[in-house]
C-alpha cells in the first residue's frame, strides 16, 4: 500500500511547479523569498511522503537537514539583503 504515499507526493509536486509563478512576478523581494520558504516546507513534505512510498527511511534524515537549514536563507535575506541599505530614521530598529 505504499503507492498511496507516492500519489500524495505526486500531488504536492505540481504545487511547487505552480508556485513558481509567484517567484517570476512577485512585486516585492519578500514575496519571492516567501515562495522559496514555501518550497522548502513543501520539499520536506514530499521527502517524508517519498520515504514512506519508496520504503527508504534514509530520506527522513534528508528532510531533517532541510528543516534545519530552511530558516537560514530567509533570515539572511531579511537581515542582510532586504533590511540593510534601507537606513530609515529609526536606524536598525528590528526588535
Amino acid at each position, binding site marked *: 500500500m505504499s503507492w498511496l504515499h507516492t500519489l500524495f507526493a*505526486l500531488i504536492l509536486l*505540481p504545487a511547487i511547479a505552480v508556485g*513558481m509563478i509567484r517567484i517570476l512576478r512577485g512585486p516585492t523581494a519578500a514575496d519571492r523569498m516567501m515562495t*522559496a520558504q514555501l518550497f522548502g516546507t513543501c520539499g520536506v513534505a514530499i521527502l517524508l511522503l517519498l520515504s514512506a512510498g519508496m520504503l527508504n527511511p534514509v*530520506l527522513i534524515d*534528508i528532510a531533517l537537514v532541510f528543516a534545519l537549514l530552511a530558516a537560514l*536563507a530567509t533570515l*539572511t535575506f531579511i537581515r*542582510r*539583503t532586504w533590511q540593510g541599505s534601507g537606513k530609515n530614521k529609526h536606524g536598525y530598529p528590528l526588535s
Partner: protein
Amino acid sequence: MTYSILTLFDIILVATLLWLGWRLLSSEDIFKAVVLFISFGLLMALAWVRMRAPDVALAEAALGAGLTGPLFLAALRRMNRSHKGERRLDIDENRDGDHGKNSEPT
C-alpha cells in the same frame, strides 16, 4: 520496464527542473535568479533522491539550500553597495528608500 506513479513523478520533476534552469539562466534580475537558484537546489535534491543516491541528496540539501543561498544573498548586498546604479537590482523598496534619502536634504 514497468511504469508506475513514480514515472509520472520523474517526468514532472525533470520538466520543472528544465524550465527552472532556463528561467534562472535567462533572468535579467539578479535577485530573482538567486531565489530561483535556491528552489533549483531543492528540486535537485529531490532528483538525486529519485536517482537512488541519498548521500548526494544530503550533500545537495546542505550545500544548495543551506550554504550557497545565504552566501549569494549576502554577496548581493555587498554588490548592491559597491556597484550602486550599475546593475539592475529589483529590490524596489531599497531603491525607493535611497531615492527618499537622496531627495530629502535637497
